[in-house]
């Protein structure tokens, strides 16, 4: 363990939730980011407001691998409740930093790890008098200690505090003092720096660090959403929180001070999606954000939007199900629920972002897609992507980009055509022309309904008319295949008979595992799908490979099921690699599963 590991370690903070640890831990992460070193934090938090154990895990990776890695190199323990488990989680040779204000119990001692005792509470209590400050600065003191252990530049911490407390400058000095308390204590009592170090690099270029939920919210702002309706649910709540924040900044009419948006906290998820459908029906871009339980409740309305062909945008920040499951843990387990939401024959367009940049782009794109296809589009993100900060390529927008509102007839166009038929397949792509209420005094009005109708929107129970409509909807879904974003490939052409498919947040760990396998001499081709339904390139990749590992974060191999249902494949061809314990999947897990399979053949 005495080998120096530069920019390559995992540190975990064991805190009590509601004690202000989040901002101290974020300060630590951001300092490493500012030093140009790839870093990824994960909040592992309870469904609770105050008093329960919460963890914050940070991986630092010079090689840019930003998935989770197993094994904790350094544990910061400020929660006696979880101490025993936290000690057990440290890898042999690792470090355990604890509050030595009270001595450690004998049964907390392992002889294969290094203990670092700092009297955090005592230092804080003897320097601050306000009880809240004592609690908060205890956290900053350990950040100071870590800074000197890891050789983090003090100047960077100072700069970050200056930005954080802009406008509240008098808070800077006591924070600096707390950092210094930690630094001084380490200087006096321990060798430093440790063999685990952070060294300045220029590996991040113009990258940003943000959460997927904030990025989705900005995507909705840039994509032209004016109506947001929602019901609070972890982990999607911060999508609308961020949308509110950005809208209040960028969507206020300069002359009147009035709002170019409306946000309604609905009475439940049913009402939230109902409002979204009503607004979209009436020509305003509208969206909601929810998670698994909310998606279940929205099924009926999604069926209506599918069948009556109303653009609808839904951001599903997936969490661990079923039922209430583990509300603050991650999973990719709403896939089948989302793809076929509602009774009867329904299919929906899904998008799978894997980074904040894609959350932004795909949410904006979802509004175009929903209007072009006149159907629900569900952005399938998850708790890990949505609530954790991720290093990401910067967000980009082309000012020449126009919103594509799809096939909407205006008054002049209605005058120019003969009889208007809402559900006529004029263009042969399955997508009919819609009209927005109040467009024309005498043409284009019809009753939108979830019951069967003919091409002219008249209610009908005629079987032939029903079948024609259902077949047109199938055709529309075929059109969608080539309209949705294409997959990303990690090689030019075909290089192997074996392929691997991963999507969303599994991407981070999968890329690392993919590299580990290549380093071991296993040639594998990789594809990251970005959407459902599957387009031509996706199908070609699947057909071109004899064996395909499908990596996903659910128990039932839902993505694999989607492939089997939609593509009619031999099930033996698709090997599931499944992590569903609620924690983000790790590279080691993927590597071990695939290697075992490949070595055994």
């Amino acid at each position, binding site marked *: 363990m005495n080998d120096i590991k530069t920019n390559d370690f995992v540190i975990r903070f064991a805190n009590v939730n509601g004690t202000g640890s989040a901002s101290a831990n974020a300060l630590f992460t951001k300092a490493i980011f500012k030093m140009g070193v790839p870093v990824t934090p994960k909040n592992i938090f309870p469904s609770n407001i105050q008093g329960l154990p919460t963890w914050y895990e940070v991986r630092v990776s010079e090689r840019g691998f930003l998935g989770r890695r197993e094994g904790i190199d350094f544990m910061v323990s400020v929660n006696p409740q979880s101490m025993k488990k936290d000690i057990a989680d440290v890898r042999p040779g690792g470090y355990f930093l604890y509050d030595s204000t009270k001595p450690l119990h004998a049964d907390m001692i392992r002889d294969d790890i290094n203990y670092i005792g700092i009297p955090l509470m005592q230092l804080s209590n003897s320097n601050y008098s306000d009880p809240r400050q004592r609690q908060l600065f205890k956290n900053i003191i350990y950040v100071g200690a870590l800074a000197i252990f890891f050789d983090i530049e003090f100047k960077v911490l100072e700069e970050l505090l200056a930005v954080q407390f802009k406008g509240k400058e008098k808070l800077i000095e006591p924070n600096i003092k707390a950092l210094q308390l930690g630094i001084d204590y380490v200087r006096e009592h321990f060798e430093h720096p440790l063999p685990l170090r952070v060294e300045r690099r220029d590996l991040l270029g*113009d990258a*940003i660090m*943000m959460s997927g939920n904030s990025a989705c919210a*900005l995507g909705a*702002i*840039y994509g*032209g959403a*004016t*109506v947001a*309706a929602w019901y609070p649910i972890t982990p999607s709540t911060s999508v609308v929180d961020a949308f509110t924040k950005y809208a209040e900044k*960028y*969507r206020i*009419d300069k002359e*009147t*001070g*009035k*709002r*170019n*948006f*409306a*946000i*309604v906290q*609905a*009475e439940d998820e*049913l*009402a*939230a*999606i*109902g*409002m979204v*459908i*009503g*607004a*979209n*029906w*009436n*020509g*305003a871009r*509208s969206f909601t954000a929810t998670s698994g339980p909310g998606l279940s409740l929205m099924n*009926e*309305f999604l069926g209506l939007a599918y069948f009556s062909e109303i653009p609808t945008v839904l951001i599903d920040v997936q969490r661990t199900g079923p039922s209430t499951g583990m509300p603050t843990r991650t999973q990719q387990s709403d896939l089948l629920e989302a793809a076929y939401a509602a009774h009867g024959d329904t299919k929906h367009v899904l998008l799978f972002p894997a980074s904040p940049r894609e959350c932004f782009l795909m949410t904006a794109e979802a509004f175009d897609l929903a209007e072009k296809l006149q159907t629900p589009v569900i952005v399938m993100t998850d708790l890990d992507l949505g609530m954790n900060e991720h290093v990401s390529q*910067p*967000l980009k*927008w*082309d*000012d020449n*980009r126009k*919103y594509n509102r799809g096939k909407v007839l205006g008054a002049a166009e209605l005058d120019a055509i003969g009889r208007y038929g809402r559900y006529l397949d004029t263009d042969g792509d399955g997508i009919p022309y819609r*009209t*927005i*209420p*109040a*467009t*024309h*005094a005498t043409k284009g*009005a019809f*009753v*939108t309904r*979830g019951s069967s109708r003919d091409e002219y929107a*008249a209610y009908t129970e005629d079987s032939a008319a029903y079948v024609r409509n259902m077949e047109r909807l199938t055709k529309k879904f075929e059109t969608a295949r080539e309209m949705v974003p294409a997959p990303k490939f990690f090689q030019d052409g075909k290089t192997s008979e074996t392929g691997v498919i991963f999507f969303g947040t599994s991407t981070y760990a999968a890329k690392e595992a993919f590299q580990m396998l290549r380093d071991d001499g296993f040639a594998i081709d990789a594809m990251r799908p970005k959407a459902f339904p599957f387009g031509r390139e996706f199908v070609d990749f699947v057909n071109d490979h004899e064996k395909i590992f499908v990596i996903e974060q659910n128990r039932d191999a839902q993505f694999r099921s989607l492939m089997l249902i939609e593509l009619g494949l031999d099930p033996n061809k698709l090997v599931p690699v499944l992590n569903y314990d609620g924690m983000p999947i790790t590279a080691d897990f993927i590597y071990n599963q695939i290697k075992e399979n490949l070595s055994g053949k």
Partner: protein
Amino acid sequence: MSYLRSKFRHPALPKNKLGYTVDYYEGSLSTLCAGCGHDSISAAIAQACFELNIEPHRVAKLSGIGCSSKTPAYFLNNSHGFNSVHGRMPSVATGANLANRDLIYLGVSGDGDSASIGMGQFVHVIRRNLNMVYIVMNNGCYGLTKGQDSATADIGSKNKSGQINLFESIDLASLAIELGATFVAQSFSGDKEQLIPLIKAGMSHPGFAFINVISPCVTFNNNVGSTKSYDYVRQHMEATSTFDFVPLAHEIRTQYEEGETQHLTMHDGTVIQLHKLAKDWNPLDRVSAVNAVGRARRDGEILTGLLYMIPECKELHALLNTTDRPLNSLTENELCPGADILESINESLR
């Protein structure tokens, strides 16, 4: 129902200010049972819009599921309609209204649609004071599924198969007043003299206007012993007032007897003239209105007419401070902050 409608129109049919005759406000042929109260309400809606000189395409008509919710197809053929899902019309209407504040929103629902499956949405749309007219065609039973009791069926009322309803009824009008609805009226499908001006007033009201209309189900709930039958309602109706809706100082016309008259000036300058018949009742006082409805219920009467109103109120757009322009008319120019701002956001995240 009949299958053919005559295309003949008397050449001397009166025209409104827009030059339309009342048939311009009609819809497709109704498929409801002959004698259904709902058809009278559809006709009253068409007549009210005709008399108010409304351009039909400026109206959006929305409904849930059930017999009543079929009716948007039977009036205002030139209006967009939305026959949504059971009990969820209020949310769809909320979204639609947020998208374009300039249209008139007319929601049609039934007692099953609003008082059972849709109760959650009904109470919350009231809280938000959405600018719409919300009509419940209330027949105390589920017609489309052949006559089961609904939650508005009175306790002790007998249905067609002879069963007595065991459960307390939900009184939607009292509930609406309690919840802070800003316009609450009650009427009877068979009384168009009262219903038409109520609908007109509701459409002029700048907030949530609720009209509970007792509308007997001729097929499943018009039997002896039912408290929602034509005979029962006719015998037990007690009008709070006679009522005239006076847009822009029109001549007042009424078939009711003279009584105490109260003028209520609405937000848009139109005037309601109430000829009060009920005692101890002030339509501008919530407690008084609740008491009047409660007393009538206790005595087995159905109080009709305007029950309660707050003429000046803030509807949802005013509460949310949304722009005066319809949100659905905004473009990239107003909505997209642009690449430069995005770069400044990027910079703040580095």
